[in-house]
């Protein structure tokens, strides 16, 4: 086929979290533009495996941009050059024959590398654990339509709820800050009447946990929203800031 490309990859290889890593060069041939980035890596891995070499480790699962498992800094951009795209949905037609591609793992103190391109993102789970929920038990729910939520509010909550927890925001942020991730959750939950009740406690404990985990401070550089595959806006960060400041100044009673 005429659209097949040869690419020159520079991939970060690191044996485990304790080892020092480094780049290795690979040449990949017969890459079709219809392939996804991960399928291109699959192909490389199969070639490596056939040669008895250690295949490149990377996280992936659903391959349709919803599970948030895939990651990778591709030529210095989280999830690669496509807008609102995850690595698994980034197609090779974004590249040209002969291109050099540098592939690195997410880098942040809070996201230690496990192996090669796979990193530990459990810090995000810990932020949720600190308060990213509504404290309701199974079986203890009122009739669904007893709570009215205006469409615009519900839609904005949904915009924020669309977060897939991939880590691109913190990975792309020059300060490795997790504000967009945290703000998306506090915004979703505190906008809805069922989550408003505990919003003060939630925002306090989530921000506290986020800081403890070693994420940086937000300096409003907006790289997070540019990298977010779901297009979540930093307006949510402003909203969370407002809510957090409210905890200092306001009382619920």
């Amino acid at each position, binding site marked *: 086929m005429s659209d097949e490309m040869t690419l020159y990859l520079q991939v970060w290889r690191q044996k485990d979290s304790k080892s020092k890593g480094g*780049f290795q060069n690979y040449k990949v041939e017969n890459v079709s533009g219809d392939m996804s980035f991960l399928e291109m890596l699959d192909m490389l891995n199969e070639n490596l495996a056939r040669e008895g070499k250690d295949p490149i480790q990377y996280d992936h699962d659903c391959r349709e941009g919803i599970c948030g498992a895939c990651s990778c*800094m591709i*030529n*210095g*951009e989280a999830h690669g*050059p496509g*807008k609102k795209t995850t690595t698994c949905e980034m197609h090779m037609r974004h590249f040209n024959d002969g291109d050099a591609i*540098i592939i*690195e793992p997410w*880098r*942040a*103190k*809070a996201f230690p590398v496990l192996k090669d391109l796979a990193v530990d993102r459990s810090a995000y789970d810990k932020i949720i654990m600190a308060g990213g929920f509504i404290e309701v038990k199974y079986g203890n729910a009122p009739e669904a339509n007893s709570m009215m939520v205006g469409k615009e509010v519900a839609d904005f909550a949904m915009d924020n709820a669309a977060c897939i927890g991939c880590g691109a925001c913190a990975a*792309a942020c*020059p*300060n*490795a*800050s997790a*504000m967009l991730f945290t703000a998306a959750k506090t915004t979703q939950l505190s906008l809805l009447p069922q989550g408003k009740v505990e919003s003060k406690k939630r925002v306090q404990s989530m*921000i*506290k946990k*986020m*800081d403890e985990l*070693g*994420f*940086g*401070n*937000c*300096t*409003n*550089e*907006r*790289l*997070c*929203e*540019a*990298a977010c595959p779901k297009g979540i806006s*930093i*307006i949510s*960060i*402003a*909203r*969370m*800031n*407002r*809510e*957090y*400041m409210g*905890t*200092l100044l306001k009382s619920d009673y």
Partner: protein
Amino acid sequence: MSWVSSYFASSVGKKSVMALTGLSLVGFLVVHLVGNINMLIGSDAFNHYSHFLLSFEGIYVLEAVLAALFLLHAFFGLMIAFQNSQARPDSYSVQTKSGRGTTFASSTMPYTGTIILIFLILHLFDLKFGEHYSVPNEEGVRDIYKLVLVYFSKPLHVAWYIIAMISLAIHTSHGFWSAFQTLGFSHPKYDGFLRKSSIAYAVLVGAGFSFFAIWAYLQHGGNV
């Protein structure tokens, strides 16, 4: 009180200090710039204006507040910059500027801030604590007008001043909007307006102050 200290120890708390002090300084710059207009009216107007400020009883309190604002802003700014460098111990080997997100201004805040810090120390040293000229026939009135003109008669001083003002403009072009964002004033309805205002403010302050330095230079060192 733990809830206050924990607030200011948090990332959002620190940023809100940055935003509040920053916005106050933004306000101060406007006052300063407006005050400078007296220079264009003439030496008397300018000297009387500055005498009025210096002889005001509460001036030390105001100066202390201003210094505190500035020091807090600088201190928290440097602390944030340091902590942020810790948040990513291994940096990326490539970072692409794709035109999405970050701007030159936003990514250089600690650097432009440092230039402004150095500038401010020199500025106070050269002008506020500089040569003491007296206005003839008016006892106790400093001739600040002359001081300014003498100071800016040197092209090097003008150049340094303009560099500092460009840094200030760059700094505030992000800082102005950023303060509102940090304080939670952001909404699709007016976010665009705030961003444009931020640029407009930066241009006004940067060009405005630079204008006075150039103007002073063109007055031939106060020897007229």
